[in-house]
């Protein structure tokens, strides 16, 4: 995520990427394994790049790649230095202009459409979630990192957040499948990186409710309240030394907010919710080894926009395998749609 605020916030990079290229962002770990034409196409490109053939210390192919739409490789780099990135982009453009010494197109060309599931709930409730450390009581400075994710609720689930009678004072407990989804997959510590999903047993307490606090024509104003406590012992084997790591992890938070339901359109026109509390522990990929806490963290949920990037799937949700393959590799960072939606 450092790249967002360094390389991709640089005016030169923004201009080059926007005007001279067709910019696209995707999940590297998915593409590295994807068993279809897109995965083959991606691997043809990246094996000619900066990490081509590498297996140690990891086999990751993360980075930035430039290529032609037939898969002909131009140049690549993995860097958070804007000058080095700009150099790579200019090198790609120069190679293209010279049109010599270019490699081969991908032997596997992209089909017009793939097996990726289009699960985006266009008529449902899509929230953008931002996580950030909150100031520490002892004044210890935080590092300013933050991260985002997306929450998906279907149309029926969105409607279920509203009390059946929309009169001031009416109250509704939010259904367990929604509380569970928020708890397991969205009330996580992803400030610094990708955390594991919470297991079912980690949900020690979970309750969320709405209450009608105002009605003005079709506009129904709801107050959101709740509390969730998550706690589990998490373990994994570290590839660097083969040791089993074990940490007690948790997030104990209260939830509050307000939302506007348009009863005529049957959709939320505003949604503001925040979960605030202490988190502790670390996972394999969320880089909290030096900050085990407990320490305060907040997650803010607001309506997402409709741009392509705001259709990004929830981090945990696997949409990139054919249906018959989605549950084949259960992972602690990704789940099949059935497990997400419950």
């Amino acid at each position: 995520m450092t790249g967002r605020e360094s390389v991709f916030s640089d005016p030169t990079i923004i201009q080059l990427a926007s005007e001279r290229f067709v910019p696209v962002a995707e999940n590297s770990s998915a593409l590295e394994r994807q068993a279809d034409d897109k995965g083959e196409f991606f691997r043809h490109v990246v094996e000619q790049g900066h990490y081509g053939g590498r297996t140690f210390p990891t086999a990751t192919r993360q980075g930035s790649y430039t290529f032609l739409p037939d898969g002909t490789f131009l140049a690549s780099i993995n860097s958070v230095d804007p000058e080095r990135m700009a150099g790579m982009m200019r090198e790609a453009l120069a190679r293209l202009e010279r049109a010599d010494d270019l490699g081969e197109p991908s032997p596997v060309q992209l089909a017009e459409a793939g097996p990726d599931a289009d699960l985006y709930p266009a008529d449902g409730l899509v929230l953008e979630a931002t996580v950030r450390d909150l100031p520490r009581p002892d004044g210890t400075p935080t590092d300013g990192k933050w991260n985002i994710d997306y929450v998906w609720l279907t149309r029926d689930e969105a409607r279920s957040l509203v009390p059946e009678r929309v009169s001031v004072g009416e109250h509704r407990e939010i259904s367990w499948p929604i509380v569970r989804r928020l708890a397991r997959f969205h009330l996580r510590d992803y400030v610094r990186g990708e955390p594991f999903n919470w297991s079912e047993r980690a949900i020690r307490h979970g309750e969320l409710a709405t209450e009608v606090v105002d009605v003005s024509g079709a506009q129904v104003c709801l107050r959101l309240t709740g509390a969730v406590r998550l706690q589990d012992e998490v373990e994994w084997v570290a590839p660097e030394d083969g040791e089993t790591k074990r940490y007690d992890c948790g997030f104990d938070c209260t939830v509050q907010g307000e939302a506007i339901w348009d009863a005529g359109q049957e959709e939320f026109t505003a949604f503001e919710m925040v979960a605030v509390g202490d988190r502790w522990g670390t996972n394999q990929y969320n880089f909290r080894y030096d900050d085990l806490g407990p320490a305060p963290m907040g997650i803010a949920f607001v309506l997402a926009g409709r741009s392509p990037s705001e259709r990004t799937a929830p981090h945990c949700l696997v949409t990139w395998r054919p249906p018959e393959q989605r549950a084949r590799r259960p992972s602690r960072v990704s789940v099949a749609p059935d497990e997400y939606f419950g």
Partner: protein
Amino acid sequence: MATHASADIPPGDDHRALIEYIRPRPDETRWREIPWQTDIRDACRIAVETGKPVFLWAMNGNPLGCT
């Protein structure tokens, strides 16, 4: 990297102030000014139409979401 000062954090239960504190500021979201596509298939189709090469940002997780 810019950090918030402790004095910025709102006391009590003001959820709007907390959300404003947590959500990214404009200077933290310049990367969104780039018109990112989210699928290599779409990017390659547009590249054919426009005659431009593709620029792929590939990170674990998703660079446009949780990474």
